[in-house]
């Protein structure tokens, strides 16, 4: 149940991609007719992605190599192009690490960045954000939903505030796209990052929505593809895959969303009922349909992961031991958890491969794993061990 770490490519997506490796391998930039099929594939894929996010014009969709690149292009693109207007960027403390590190990089180059805090459930307060806007502010970047704790942000209100103040609004929707309905027009966005592999598409492809009229500086120079905003010969098989994934996601979103939220709710309720001192991290209702982030007092995440792995269950954790930097998840710390609470968390991100049987199995075995680890921990109070 760790779809956030890796999802299989949908077989229908894989089928759609195949011809573009060895049969239709033309370059869309070529003038002769063999390039036409690649050009058409590019155009159709662009339209499919545009439809998924409610973009008015398909040319507002730029293809990239993934969510991280889209974030780089959006944030650096706005910053460098508009630095004469101002040098202030507003973002949040729970953004994806790519956004955080891009902002830190810009800070080293003289940009000012304000990281808005979130409440205990990971929600941004749009008014707190409005208070921080100055005449130097050129960009606000807030994620649509947080992939770790699941909380969905008040994007429409934030977008409205951004536009009232003539500030560009970028939304990292990598965790949300394909799972919940997104509409860039109605929700007041100027830039939106999405990635293919988060919706059962191939890895190494993503997109950035750039609203017509938004001025950004390209990060990757070259032959001028993607309206000059992202040069490089287009990854046609990957892009076709992303287009197909977007089309499937759009068609199945409502039903799959309902199915996943039922599984999620059953899992959360079951855990909170059966296991003492267990808690849900993130907002209880305004959360992604497939995300259950739970924490358990007195024990640590990696040992939980190992215990569950031996029983055939894969999950992730926000604990320091599971991160490359040996720091606990910055998201869990941002919502006010103490270090030891952050260490004791597990993230379940369910997907197409999960069924009710899976949830029942987890509910059957997880209490035992928790109990065993609690018996081993010096932090467990004596009353609990009886």
């Amino acid at each position, binding site marked *: 149940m760790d779809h956030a770490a890796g999802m299989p490519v949908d077989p229908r997506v894989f089928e759609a991609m195949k011809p573009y490796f060895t049969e239709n391998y033309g370059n869309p930039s070529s003038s002769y007719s063999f390039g036409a099929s690649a050009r058409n594939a590019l155009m159709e894929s662009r339209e499919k992605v545009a439809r998924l996010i409610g973009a008015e014009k398909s040319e507002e969709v730029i293809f990239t190599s993934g969510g991280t690149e889209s974030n780089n292009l959006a944030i650096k693109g706005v910053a460098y192009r508009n630095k004469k207007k101002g040098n202030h960027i507003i973002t949040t403390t729970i953004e994806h690490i790519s956004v955080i590190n891009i902002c830190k990089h810009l800070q080293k180059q003289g940009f000012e960045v304000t990281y808005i805090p979130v409440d205990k459930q990971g929600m941004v307060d749009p008014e707190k954000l409005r208070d921080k806007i100055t005449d130097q502010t050129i960009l606000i970047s807030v994620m649509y939903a947080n992939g770790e704790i699941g909380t969905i942000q008040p994007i429409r209100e934030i977008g409205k505030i951004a536009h009232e103040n003539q500030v560009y609004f970028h939304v990292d929707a990598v965790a949300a796209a394909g799972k919940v309905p997104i509409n860039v027009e109605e929700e007041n966005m100027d830039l939106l990052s999405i990635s293919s592999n988060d919706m059962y598409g191939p890895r190494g492809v993503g997109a950035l929505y750039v609203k017509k009229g938004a001025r950004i500086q390209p990060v990757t120079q070259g032959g001028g593809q993607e309206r000059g905003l992202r040069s490089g010969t287009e990854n046609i098989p990957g892009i076709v895959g992303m287009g197909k994934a977007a089309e499937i996601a759009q068609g199945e979103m409502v039903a799959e969303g309902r199915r996943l939220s039922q599984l999620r709710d059953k899992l959360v309720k079951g855990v909170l009922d059966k296991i003492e001192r267990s808690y849900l991290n993130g907002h209880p209702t305004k959360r992604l349909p497939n995300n259950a982030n739970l924490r358990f007092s007195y*024990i*640590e995440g990696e*040992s939980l992961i190992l215990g569950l792995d*031996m029983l055939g269950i894969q999950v992730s954790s926000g604990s320091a031991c599971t991160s490359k930097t*040996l720091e606990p998840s910055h998201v869990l710390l941002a919502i006010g958890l103490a270090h*030891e609470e952050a260490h004791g968390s597990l993230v379940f991100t369910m997907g197409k491969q999960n069924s009710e049987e899976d949830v029942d199995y987890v509910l059957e075995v997880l209490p035992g794993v928790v109990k065993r680890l609690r018996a*081993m921990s010096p*932090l467990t109070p004596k009353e609990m061990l009886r």
Partner: protein
Amino acid sequence: MNPRNVGEIPDADGVGTVGNPVCGDLMTVYIKVKDNRLEDVKFKTFGCGAAIATSSMITELAKGKTIEEALKITRSDVADSLGGLPPIKMHCSNLAADALHAAIKDYLEKKEANK
């Protein structure tokens, strides 16, 4: 994952606690000493798989040894007995050795105090 020697010794001769939950690792080692040998060693750990494994391993390595022998057990002994540890996890084995030595130190201090 079947760690050995989990638990407490209520009338332990020495207790050593190292690490802290903020870092994500807390280990407590309990020892019972008879005729200068570690008759019994138990542990409790809040921490990752490597933390649990290294603290369990050190209790196995220390049991039956004399105080002097037990003090000589190093983090590499623990790591080697486990068949090696990834570099990022070596600090866990350090903690295990420290916890054992802290328990021994506690025992020696108590012994001094009782003279």
